[in-house]
Each structure stands twice: as structure tokens, then as C-alpha cells.
């Protein structure tokens, strides 16, 4: 059925108005996300300070620094692919956006598996009933939960972005999820030295 010209122009007008509305909301969306990130940073700060309060700066020699280093590298790489996904969405490259989102999800899953391996190893040396065990399981567990929620968010934008909605219209959902992912990476940058390296 043919669409009347005035109806089509009305539709375009609505889309433009919606785009303008989304653009106007962008600064407040960003501020809201940053406030959420700040509150989450305080939460991680409390967890890390617990470690120093209970154990001082002593780290048991049984902690696998190599595994911690591998986990850090995987998470840093995932931050790079997340940045690429966002950049490609901004520059309207649908293929690049989807490919890099998938890479990020994959690296996130590798990280979660790595934390699982860490837990299996940690159970032998520091069961959750010990001081260091409590700190390690709580901190890495809560961080891994953040990674899992990030993976869920990335999966959502990957699926919803199949029709090109983020490379043609507002890319705020991609920006939001990617910023959250970077924050999870930043949190690990402090967890890694605190749990594996300091002495």
C-alpha cells in the first residue's frame, strides 16, 4: 500500500524529533551513569579496604600471580574490543560493531572461566573460612558478578542491534554498556595488585 507523502514526511518528522529528544537526553543519561559508577566505585573501595584492614599488606605466597596477570590481560583486551565496538557504532559500521561486541563477550566469558579456575585453586590454600579466603572469594566473586552482568548487557545490545538501530539511530545503549564494561576493567586494575601483588 502506498504511503501518502504527507504521512511519510510526518513519520520522518517524528523520527527526527525522537532523535533530537534522544540527543537532548544524552548529557543527563551520561551523568546518571557516572553517578552509578561512582557509587559502585565506593563499594569496591570498601571491599579493598577490608583486605588491608584484615590482612595489612601481606599477600600469601600461594596466590597465583601468573593467573592474576592472565586475567588482567584478558580483561584489558576486552576493554579494547569494547572501545572498538562503541567506535564502530558511532561511525555507523554495523559489521565492526557486531564483531567487536562478540569478541568482548567472548573475552568476558574467558575471564569468568579464569575466575572459576582461580576459585578451584584457592579452595586448596585459602578456604572461605580463612581470613584471606573470605577476602579473595568475596572480592573476586562480586567482581565476576559485575562481569556477568556486563556480558548480559553486551548480549542485549548485540541482539537488539541486529537491525542496525544503534548504527543508524541513538547509540546511547552501546555507550552505556561499554562504559560500564570499562569500569569493571578499572575495578580489576585495583583488585589485581591488592589481592595478588602487594607486600
Amino acid at each position, binding site marked *: 500500500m502506498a504511503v501518502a507523502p504527507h504521512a511519510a514526511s510526518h513519520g520522518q518528522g517524528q523520527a527526527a524529533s525522537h532523535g533530537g529528544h534522544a540527543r537532548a537526553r*544524552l*548529557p543527563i543519561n*551520561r*551523568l546518571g551513569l*557516572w553517578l552509578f559508577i561512582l557509587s559502585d566505585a565506593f563499594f569496591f573501595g570498601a571491599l579493598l579496604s577490608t583486605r588491608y584492614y584484615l590482612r595489612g*599488606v601481606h599477600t600469601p605466597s600461594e596466590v597465583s*600471580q601468573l593467573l592474576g*596477570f592472565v586475567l*588482567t*590481560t584478558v580483561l*584489558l583486551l576486552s*576493554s*579494547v574490543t*569494547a*572501545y*572498538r565496538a562503541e*567506535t564502530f557504532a*558511532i*561511525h*555507523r*559500521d554495523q559489521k565492526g560493531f557486531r564483531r567487536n561486541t562478540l569478541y568482548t563477550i567472548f573475552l568476558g566469558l574467558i575471564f569468568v572461566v579464569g575466575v572459576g579456575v582461580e576459585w578451584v585453586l584457592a579452595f586448596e590454600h585459602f578456604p572461605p573460612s580463612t581470613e584471606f579466603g573470605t577476602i579473595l572469594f568475596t572480592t573476586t566473586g562480586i567482581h565476576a558478578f559485575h562481569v556477568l552482568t556486563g556480558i548480559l548487557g553486551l548480549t542485549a545490545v548485540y541482539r537488539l542491534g541486529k537491525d542496525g538501530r544503534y548504527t543508524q539511530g541513538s547509540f546511547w545503549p552501546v555507550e552505556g554498556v561499554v*562504559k560500564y564494561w*570499562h*569500569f569493571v*576493567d*578499572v575495578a580489576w*586494575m*585495583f583488585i*589485581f*595488585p591488592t589481592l595478588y*601483588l*602487594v*607486600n
Partner: protein
Amino acid sequence: MHTDGLKRAMRRMWWMILALAVLTLLDVIIPALMPHGNVVFLGIVAAIEAGLVFYYFMHIGQLWHPHEEE
């Protein structure tokens, strides 16, 4: 114009990969060189890493320049 912006963003990404790789290696080298009393140095390295990610990957500057896309 889009291609220029994309090239700039990718150049920024390579610099960030280099900087984060160096800082992560420092993370591992510091405890090897300084087995005791390394907490301050590790804290400084982590703070620099976090600052770089906040500024270049998370575009924290957009809070002060709301309509900047990149």
C-alpha cells in the same frame, strides 16, 4: 570526516594498548624488584591506568563538554 574520526579513534586505541601493556608489565615487575613496601608504587600504577581508561576510553571529558561525540 567520518573516516578521519575513525582513524583518530583507532590511533588513540593503539596508544592506549601500548600504555596499558607497559603499565601492566610494571605491575608485575614492581613486586619482583621490590618484594616489600611496594603498595604505594602499585597504587600509583593502578591510578594512572584508571585515569587513562576514564579519560580516553570512557570519555569522562564529555561530562564537561556534553555535545562532544568523540
